């Protein structure tokens, strides 16, 4: 067994425990602990990507139980990719938070680390109930982070967010226990084997469980009609938290990709038929929402919904090629969404009372720096040709050619891309050109623009190294769709034999 596998869960857990004790008494020390832990998380994630790149599925048996009886962690290319992405977004969000957000309320850093722990656990676990538990861990931490700094608007948004997610948790439990009642197992690999051998009379119930799980993951991923909570909630969240939340919708996408390929088989079952239409509808609604957005943060929130829609539509195509393209697009869209949330905060602070509202306001003191960053982010988010958004969308569209749904996919993706571009240009011209009154003169601290620049640079790096990145994404998709390797590695893992204690 490779003990590196559990490091992304244990490291934030320990750091969070230390931070809970330290944060109130030594805030400076707490910042260092949190920063080092997040750097460590990123390093471990990079190590795990190296491990997974060979194509081998590593398995970690918690408590050294024989699978499928105990809880199993499994690392394949997809899990490792999601971990690395989480680490990158988390580091940028944390550096931004060190500029002052972390001092506006208690226990920011501890909650931040617990959130990382929940995310890592959700990406690594190979057990359905354990996935539920890690969802709850990351949600519990996100409730705390969302409330950070409080205020009536944030409280209202938090209440809605918590109630929605608790209701979704109830549905999740019903779906999980239905599957357990049918198959007698919760291990994802074992479920894949057992569900395929289910008697015909029980197949309908398994489909019901699948649809329930789709609703739950769809709420996390903000899929139409379960998307309405997202723009308001993300706009109400503190900027670094909103940036970290950019990865939270991708947890929903990840769970859909995992459960509806590994457990149910790619493109099979009632739930899989819904993915493509739901994704396209989400994308269309999100691009209209982006046009109507009243502030840059709400606009960024709608872009998160749009990327979820694109990804879901690509998952609905159910081929390894479209899945690979979707994973490539996922990396880029997460990085850019996080950058936009951080940028909205920096722009909003410069405009004083006008904030990031898309209305004429005071001129910015640093239009060149922020304008350049905004232009880069908007070009990337809109999917203009040389950038990764374009490459990702092109790869998705290319993989759709020849499937019956291609005219729909082309139409919705291209038109919504245009609408998003219009929305972003409108936002840019209102924020940077239509100014009233003089600049407030406030400088932009390096802690505010550096993480944005780093996220954008990482986004551009995915184009510069499009060959290897796309190759990795395609290999990850191939591994996910093929599923035999995952099932064999998980079910074939044996506990470590030990000498009996004397």
């Amino acid at each position, binding site marked *: 067994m490779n003990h590196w596998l559990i490091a992304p869960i244990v490291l934030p857990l320990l750091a969070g425990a230390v931070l809970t004790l330290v944060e109130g008494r030594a805030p400076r020390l707490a910042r260092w602990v949190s920063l080092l832990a997040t750097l460590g998380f990123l390093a471990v994630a990079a190590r795990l990507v190296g491990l997974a790149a060979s194509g081998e599925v590593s398995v970690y048996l918690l408590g050294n139980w024989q699978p499928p009886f105990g809880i199993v962690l499994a690392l394949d290319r997809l899990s490792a990719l999601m971990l690395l992405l989480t680490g990158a977004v988390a580091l940028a969000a944390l550096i931004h938070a060190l500029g002052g957000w972390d001092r506006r309320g208690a226990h920011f850093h501890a909650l931040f680390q617990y959130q990382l722990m929940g995310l890592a656990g959700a990406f690594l676990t190979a057990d359905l109930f354990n996935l539920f538990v890690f969802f709850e861990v990351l949600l*519990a931490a996100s409730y705390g982070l969302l409330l950070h700094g409080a205020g*009536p608007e944030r409280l*209202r948004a938090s*209440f809605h967010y918590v*109630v929605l997610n*608790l209701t979704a948790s109830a549905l999740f439990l019903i779906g999980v226990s239905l599957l357990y009642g049918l198959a007698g197992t919760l291990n994802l690999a074992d479920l894949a084997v057992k569900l395929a051998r289910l008697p015909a009379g029980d197949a309908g119930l398994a489909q019901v469980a699948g649809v329930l799980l789709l609703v739950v993951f769809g709420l996390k991923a903000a899929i139409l009609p379960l998307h309405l909570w997202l723009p308001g909630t993300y706009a109400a969240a503190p900027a670094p938290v909103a940036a970290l939340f950019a990865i939270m919708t991708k947890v929903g996408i990840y769970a859909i990709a995992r459960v509806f390929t590994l457990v149910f088989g790619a493109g099979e079952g009632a739930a899989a038929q819904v993915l493509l239409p739901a994704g396209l509808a989400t994308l269309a609604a999100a691009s209209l929402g982006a046009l109507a957005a009243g502030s840059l943060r709400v606009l960024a929130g709608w872009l998160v919904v749009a990327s979820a829609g694109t990804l879901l539509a690509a998952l609905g195509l159910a081929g390894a090629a479209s899945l690979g393209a979707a994973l490539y697009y996922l990396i880029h869209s997460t990085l850019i969404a996080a950058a936009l949330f951080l940028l909205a905060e920096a722009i909003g602070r410069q405009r004083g009372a006008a904030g990031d509202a898309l209305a004429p306001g005071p001129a910015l003191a640093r239009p060149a720096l922020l304008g350049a960053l905004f232009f880069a982010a908007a070009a990337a988010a809109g999917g203009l040709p040389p950038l990764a958004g374009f490459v990702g969308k092109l790869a998705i569209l290319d993989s759709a050619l020849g499937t019956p749904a291609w005219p729909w996919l082309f139409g919705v993706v291209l038109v919504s891309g245009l609408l998003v571009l219009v929305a972003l240009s409108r936002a840019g011209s209102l924020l940077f050109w239509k100014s009233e009154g003089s600049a407030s003169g406030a400088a932009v601290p390096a802690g505010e623009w550096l993480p944005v620049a780093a996220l954008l640079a990482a986004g551009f790096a995915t184009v510069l190294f499009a060959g290897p990145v796309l190759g990795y994404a395609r290999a990850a998709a191939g591994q996910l769709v093929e599923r035999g390797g995952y099932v064999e590695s998980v079910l074939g893992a044996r506990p470590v034999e030990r000498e009996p204690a004397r």
Partner: protein
Amino acid sequence: MSLELLLALGIGLLAAAGIYLLLRPRTFDTVLGLSLLSYAVNLFIFAMGRLRVGAPPIAAGGAPPTLATVADPLPQALVLTAIVISFGMTALLLVIALRGRHESGTDQVDGRDDGRGSGA
């Protein structure tokens, strides 16, 4: 009345009451609704391990370890986990609801007083 029917009716009743309360516009009703819904879910998880009366949750010596002789212990563990999580979440939700009531002056879920008072 059989045990299965009784339990199914109980779960259905709890879930129906929970969903009704969840859709009400007051924070306290919503919290109560979520609690009832979680009771329904917990009973459902328990029922998914099959209903057995008077069976031990561990295989006794000699008896074959099938669901005919032992009660499935796993759903019991799952229920315990679900109870702990929903208990913690309910406490958190109550704090948010109380704080919201304090800051906005109303217990309406959108924070806007609709003039009907909390007893409506």
